[in-house]
């Protein structure tokens, strides 16, 4: 598509409007003009209300102070009923709207079948190609569908807090296994140290050199944020976690294929009537290829 190439050329030379239009087209399902997977992103996830957006706001400040550019893709859920979405992440990134070194795009999940947000990889590629150094994908880590979103990032930072039983929730959702680095936010609160120790002890069961570090930060005061940025430079993923992320992506693509299969309705009816078994239904869809 000619239009995409033109927009990409303009975006490469620093035109934000063209970059923005290009991201919209890719979000709507147009093929990216770039080779898939050339960019690299950091996924930031954690329970609701833990301070992810506020922390990202502070991280942005540090990067900008160091002269590095930051692009954020902030993902929030679409309403399953109306299809609409309220995207309020950027209101907590207070300095994000004035620096040329910062680009923030709010994205709704748009209820894709299987929770598949296939557009994230090409969007990261485009941002990377256009010279954005630090590319973040922010998503609420509340359940399975959000894990699927963040699995499209190349490294994952898990943000947790001291004020609830969040750690157990994170473990239940399986997000801790994917995290390359963990931070406990709200370190100004008295229970923060205890929460950090709880995470460390949960991780220590199978400790090896790839076990993620646990840092403490306060997005409110900014304490520990510079250290977090320094640590991120050194943080690498492990082969095991890479495999887990690829696995999540595959599962969401698989679910998406199932839910959009033209045979889906027939199979559901057959299952209702009891004329096929679940195993036969799966076989039938697989044969369909």
């Amino acid at each position, binding site marked *: 598509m000619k239009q995409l190439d033109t927009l990409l050329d303009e975006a490469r030379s620093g035109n934000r409007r063209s970059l923005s239009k290009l991201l*919209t087209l890719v979000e709507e399902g147009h093929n990216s003009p770039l080779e898939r997977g050339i960019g690299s992103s950091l996924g930031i996830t954690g329970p609701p209300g833990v301070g992810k957006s506020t922390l990202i706001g502070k991280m942005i400040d540090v990067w900008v102070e160091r002269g590095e550019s930051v692009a954020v893709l902030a993902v929030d859920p679409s309403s399953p009923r*109306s299809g*609409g979405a309220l995207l*309020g992440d*950027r*209101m907590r990134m*207070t300095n994000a*709207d*004035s620096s040329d070194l910062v680009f923030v795009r709010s994205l*709704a999940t748009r209820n894709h079948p299987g929770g598949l947000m296939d557009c994230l990889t090409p969007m990261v590629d485009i941002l990377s190609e256009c010279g954005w150094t630090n590319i973040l994908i922010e998503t609420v880590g509340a359940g399975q569908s959000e894990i699927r979103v963040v699995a499209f990032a190349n490294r994952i930072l898990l943000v947790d807090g001291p004020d609830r039983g969040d750690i157990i929730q994170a473990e239940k959702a399986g997000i801790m296994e994917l995290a390359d680095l963990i931070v406990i936010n709200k370190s100004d609160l008295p229970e923060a140290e205890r929460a950090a120790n709880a995470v460390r002890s949960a991780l220590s069961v199978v400790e090896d050199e790839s076990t993620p570090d646990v840092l403490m930060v306060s997005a409110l005061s900014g304490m520990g944020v510079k250290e977090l940025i320094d640590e991120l430079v050194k943080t690498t993923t492990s082969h095991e976690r890479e495999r887990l992320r690829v696995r999540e992506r595959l599962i969401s693509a698989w679910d998406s294929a199932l839910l959009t299969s033209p045979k889906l309705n027939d199979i559901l009816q057959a299952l209702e009537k009891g004329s096929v078994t679940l195993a036969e239904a799966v076989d039938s869809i697989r044969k369909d290829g």
Partner: protein
Amino acid sequence: MRIVVAKPGLDGHDRGAKVIARALRDGGHEVIYTGLRRTPDEIVRIVVDEDAGAVGLSSLSGAHSVLIPKVCEGLRKSQMDNVIVFAGGIIPEHDRKSLYEEGVRAIFGPGTTSSEILEFLTTMEERSESGDPVGVGEEAGWHW
């Protein structure tokens, strides 16, 4: 539609903007809420980065005649001519004409129902499809 709901200037009253943001979401739109105390430049930047089709400006502080035209002008300068601008809050009748001339397409005062705002947006989508001017940089004149 993707819609930015913004609070320009030093106005600290955001109840109305938040109610509108939720109503638009429930009407099936993707709403980006900016939070309080945004400058016109910041609002323009947000509309560009978010590639929004419309921006709703909420003002209850009396600064609408200064701030809203600045947003309109900024959008035109950024080649965002097809963006729909609408406003709400406390905007006296005698200030409205000049805002419409700036390209504002609707001004909603107290007592407006959320369904009226949704209706306005549907109308704008229809106008846009049939090639009628809707954006801030397109021919002014028509307004809700």
